[in-house]
């Protein structure tokens, strides 16, 4: 645990001239194009954007699951090729190993590293304690609530002391109350660990509440439409969501996203042949109504 807490700040993510297209039967599908982003060591950065704009694609490339078609992804100057324990990941679908108990799940990364059993048991217990889960170490994941599962997922990803933490809509499947609690837990943990975080979400409040900076992506093919610094003070508390500062940021981001979502939807609508509606969309009259 101390090892994680006292680690020198590192985990500088850089994505340059990035584009990625998938092969499909109708030819290549350009998912992300001409994208530059970076995360400074210890920074919390979110990516928001309309559905299908390529957020997961970008994150999966940083994780090493996808190769960029053009451009490079580096962490601390080293090009990413393939997944590694240096980049911890938390998935929306929980992705805990159902055949392992909560503690065995958390131990998994340490086991892969060859840490002896007694040592990794102790480390896992400490981490589970931090997340308020020590009472559940012997439970199997299917007995846990969604919020607990995702806490285990985060703890598991942090157990190996990764340089960066990648999260792909980790709270998307949770109910609103649990989500708020999870956001608070995550920001508290981050405050302590000072790890670089790249966080994908479509929840604007969540992005503002958690982040130092927010990237807003355009509709597909996705690229960075805007980069918004979040100067809210730290440590963050849920009450800040009522502050005028927060609301101003929210309004700004909201209008950016709405524009892109309408574009994304407009494309689909015109595909369906509803031309009249499409024209109105471009005329912004409907945008104000929505």
């Amino acid at each position, binding site marked *: 645990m101390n090892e994680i807490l006292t680690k020198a700040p590192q985990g500088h993510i850089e994505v340059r001239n990035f584009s990625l297209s998938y092969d499909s039967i109708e030819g290549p599908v350009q998912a992300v194009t001409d994208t530059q982003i970076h995360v400074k060591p210890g920074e919390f950065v979110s990516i928001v954007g309309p559905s299908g704009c390529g957020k997961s694609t970008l994150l999966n490339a940083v994780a090493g699951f996808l190769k960029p078609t053009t451009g490079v992804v580096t962490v601390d100057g080293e090009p990413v090729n393939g997944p590694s324990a240096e980049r911890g990941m938390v998935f929306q679908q929980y992705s805990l190993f159902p055949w*392992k108990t909560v503690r065995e799940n958390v131990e998994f990364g340490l086991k892969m590293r060859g840490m002896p059993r007694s040592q990794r048991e102790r480390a896992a217990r400490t981490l589970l304690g931090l997340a308020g889960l020590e009472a559940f170490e012997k439970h199997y994941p299917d007995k846990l609530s969604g919020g607990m599962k995702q806490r285990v997922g985060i703890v598991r990803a942090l157990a*190996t002391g990764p340089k960066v933490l990648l999260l792909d809509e980790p709270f998307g499947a949770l109910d609103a109350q649990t989500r708020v609690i999870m956001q*608070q837990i995550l920001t508290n943990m981050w405050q302590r660990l000072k790890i670089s975080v790249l966080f994908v979400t479509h929840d604007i409040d969540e992005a503002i509440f958690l982040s130092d900076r927010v990237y807003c992506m355009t509709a597909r093919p996705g690229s960075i439409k805007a980069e918004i610094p979040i100067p809210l003070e730290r440590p963050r508390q*849920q009450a800040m969501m009522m502050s005028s500062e927060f609301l101003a940021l929210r309004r700004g981001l909201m209008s950016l996203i709405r524009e892109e979502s309408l574009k994304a939807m407009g494309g689909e609508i015109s595909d369906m042949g509803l031309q009249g509606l499409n024209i109105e969309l471009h005329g912004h009259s409907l945008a104000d109504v929505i």
Partner: protein
Amino acid sequence: MSSPALVRHSEDSMPAIAEAGPAPAVTPPATPPSFGTFALRWYRLNRAGLRAIAIGIISLLAFLLVWHLLTTYRVVFFVRFTNVPSPLAVYASFTKAIHDPKFLMHILLSCRRILMGFSLAAIVGVPLGLIMGRFKLVHEIIFPVAEVLRPIPAIAWVPMAIMLWPTNEQSIVFITFLGSFFPILVNTLHGMTLVDPVLVRAAQCLGARERSIFREVYFPASLPHIFTGLTVGMGVAWVSLIAAEMISGQYGIGYFTWEAYSLVQYADIALGMIAIGVLGLGSSLLIRGAGQLVMPWRSR
């Protein structure tokens, strides 16, 4: 909207969540519950199971009764019960048989053949299925051959098996092996194709390499299907064994049953059949037990 209250709420609810576990903390009563309350509670929790057992016993007894009536009155109604032994006759032959070392040897030999044929099938089928599921080339090479051989019933292999193997014993074990091999292989392979790719990714992000992913993700994820394959395979192993014993055996419970027919020992026919049923049931229960032992996360 009082903000500090909101803040405190969100922080307080963390331990609250942690405590509201899946095992809902029943507030411990001041005095330990009396035996009566305990028994009542146990009864209420297990009512469905008890009901199933009770009805099961009644239905078995009814079956015996119908059998008894059909045979004592020698009913002829499309099927003829004239020569069918009564349950009491079968019981008499059973009490005689359990003191007969020859009968026990028949049973032991059949069990040994099952054990050998089935174990071989599992030892070959499970790893082969796992490897075929993981490595495309192996799949592409082996799958077509397996698909051609799979529809051939094990019984159809009897003449070929007799030609292939020097002894009768070996050919019977081979038939048993073949019967259970394909269900095991196919189910293992199926389990491999259903492994959640997100779990594989999660393991990769935690530093797992090919070998560990195989051992820690693919294998346990396929276990439920492997056990389905073992259960089905065990059933087919008995089918194949009995058929092989009836055709080419000199010993074994299948041979015993067939021999009883040749020797006009009608009660022994039914005894042999019941023995086969009980052995088949027992072996599938064994597999189910092993499955629960190996997959504790599946028992609830």
